[in-house]
């Protein structure tokens, strides 16, 4: 075995490791790897990286964007369900930045065909068109604190076209004095609309707060559910 510089390029080693060569070209590189320490080192690293990627397939966060009456809607999902729904963003890069902050180190992938995302688009379109009153979509809230998860699970049970007060929801999760904490947890809802945090309002009749884009959108969603057109 020698470490004399060789004339095989990094791309050729890569092509070999990628399975892109065949016949005599492939054989020549295979044999070269036995002779050249440097190229073998390259091949080992490429193999290792490939193997790591293959074993990480389940960690990707996939996203998709489509037009709605609220403007471009961005949705993202893990293998387990929706993790983020967003709008009011300048472009896809802004959405990816958001995902990177929420899911550090997880690979992001624009994947309109992914099962949860195609379902989300279809169901949201039906919802905006007034043809759907409940979402049949898995959500993955694992990245959230346990309290937020409980609040959002409780909010999911509020039927279409109805509203409850922050205090009602606090009682439903057995924290009757935690109305303010409930409001904060709803404000952090990563999958608005699908988890209908807009159906939670203040006991004095005012709307309370809303995360994405502010109160106008909460108003619009409640009007949509009351049977009025949204624009």
């Amino acid at each position: 075995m020698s470490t004399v510089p060789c004339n095989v390029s990094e791309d050729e080693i890569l092509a070999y490791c990628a399975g892109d060569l065949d016949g005599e070209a492939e054989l020549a590189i295979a044999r070269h790897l036995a002779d050249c320490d440097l190229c073998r080192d390259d091949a080992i690293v490429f193999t290792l990286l490939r193997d790591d990627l293959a074993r990480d397939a389940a960690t990707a966060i996939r996203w998709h964007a489509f037009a709605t009456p609220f403007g471009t809607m961005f949705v993202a999902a893990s293998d387990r369900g929706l993790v983020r729904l967003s709008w009011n963003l300048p472009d896809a890069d802004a959405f990816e930045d958001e995902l990177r902050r929420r899911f550090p180190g997880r690979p992001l992938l624009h994947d309109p065909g992914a099962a949860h995302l195609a379902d989300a688009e279809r169901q949201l379109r039906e919802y905006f068109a007034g043809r759907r009153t409940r979402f049949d979509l898995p959500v993955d809230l694992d990245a959230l604190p346990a309290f937020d998860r409980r609040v959002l699970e409780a909010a999911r049970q509020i039927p279409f076209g109805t509203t409850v007060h922050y205090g009602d929801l606090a009682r439903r999760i057995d924290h009757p004095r935690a109305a303010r904490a409930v409001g904060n947890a709803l404000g952090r809802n990563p999958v608005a609309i699908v988890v209908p945090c807009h159906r939670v309002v203040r006991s004095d009749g005012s709307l309370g707060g809303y995360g994405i884009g502010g109160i106008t959108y909460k108003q619009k969603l409640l009007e949509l559910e009351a049977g009025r057109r949204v624009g």
Partner: protein
Amino acid sequence: MTLAELACAPVVMAPPRAAPQPAVEAWMHAYEPELRRHLARLVGSADDADDLLQQVWITAHRSPPVTGPGSNVRAWLFRVATNAALDRLARERRRRIALAHHEAKVIPEAPPPPDADDASAARLDARARSRVRDHVARLPRKQREAVWLRWAEGLDYDTIAARLGCSTDSARANVYQAMKRLRAELADLRESRTP
């Protein structure tokens, strides 16, 4: 999927048809000496080479190469052998790097109990992989998606090109650029440091 598995994948997908014993025996007779030398040079140990050679014959029997005009059984056998060796070398290197990182840690962790070797190895392994994942996450979008679709999702370049809205050549180029960039950034994965 490991390299060795990938090499056989098209054959595995076909209806199972083991190679007739005489064919494998003929290949062994014709190619075993040079394959053994090849493997020994790759992995640096005669025992490991014999072990890998067994794997090659098992693969050749279970999922034999297509034979006929234009086929190249020798090239196929070298591919299966080389990929099996690279898989093994990559696993060994991952383990060495993980241990080195562990030992270099300034913050003392509770030493793993002696009977928990598998669990602690798995933990070290997971940490090493999360580093690779961090670097993948920081690649430019097209490279990141191309390399992910190729290796995590196992798509071919034509399908990747359709997904990314680019040419097949560009899909391949993006995969290559991503792999080279990862290799450059994760310099500690390398052992030969001669320029």
